[in-house]
């Protein structure tokens, strides 16, 4: 399956892109996607997205097809054609 991953904020700057398409296995969950992306984009990216235990940081918003995923979203199954937006917090005034 293929999902579209989008980035905002500091994460977009570190990834160097605001959007990419990613192919994953048919039974992949969000955690698999995040692990794949952290490996692909390197430690600075990973540090923004996950904490020391490899869990998605509470302040990193995961938006699935325009709606925030709440609670522990790591085991949420991905769907073909889904848009996964990862937002790092911003507070510029």
């Amino acid at each position, binding site marked *: 399956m293929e999902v579209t991953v989008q980035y*905002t904020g*500091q994460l977009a700057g570190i990834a160097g892109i605001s959007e990419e398409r990613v192919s994953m296995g048919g039974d992949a969950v969000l955690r698999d996607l995040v692990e794949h992306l952290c490996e692909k984009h390197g430690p600075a990216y990973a540090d923004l997205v996950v904490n020391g235990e490899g869990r998605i940081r509470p302040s990193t918003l995961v938006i699935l097809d*325009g709606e*925030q995923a*709440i609670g522990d979203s790591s085991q949420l199954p991905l769907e073909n054609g889904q848009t996964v937006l990862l*937002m790092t*917090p911003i*507070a*510029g*005034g």
Partner: protein
Amino acid sequence: MNELADEDRAIYEWQLDVPGFGEKGQAVLRNSTALVSRAGGLGGPLCFSLAAAGIGKLIIAHAGDLRVDDLNRQILMRSGGVDRPRVESIRKTLAAFNPRIEVEVVPENLSKENVKQLVSGADIAFGAAPLFEERFLLNEACVSKGIPLIDCAMFNLEGHVIPILPGTSPCLACLYPETPPHWKRRFPVIGAVSALAANIGAMEGIKALTGLGETQYGKMIHFDTATMSFQKIVIHRNPECTICASIP
């Protein structure tokens, strides 16, 4: 509630024509007080737009002296005010623009010591500080008082606005249960991006006060001027939120 004077009608004539706003909306604004946390690149144009719309009173908290590198975005400031308190420029500019509104400037940023008192006099608050610590303090005080908070933020070419109605829509601590560890005080900014976030925030505030249109509670309004894309993201209350979960 104070009625509109003839001079109000003359100044605001063109917006009295806005369907759903009218004299009633104008009178509500005239009798409303807004607290704005920092009047820099974002809070400045926000104050300008609220002043133009005829808000009754602005309470503006902003510490420090004006620096020359503030002037690419802080449009309430004046170049003659460099090295002088920012609140001085803020007060002068707003007084020259609309002397009919009341402006209270506070030469301090929001802190544990002053936040409760500042929020106590407000009907609505706008968060535009460059630090999450100040935004969280304002969020907590607004939830405690039960008044709307319009949180407005930007970074680089993007921005977002989150209208918050305590007990109804997610608060800032619902979204960010911890202080984001990577946020830095210095951020890339073009003033027009800040002003765009500011004016989306000003409209959300005007709607929240007057009942005009639909205030976007429960949504994050996000935009990216690099691609001129806008989207409304559905956000949720956190049942374990330390700030607002106890409100049914």
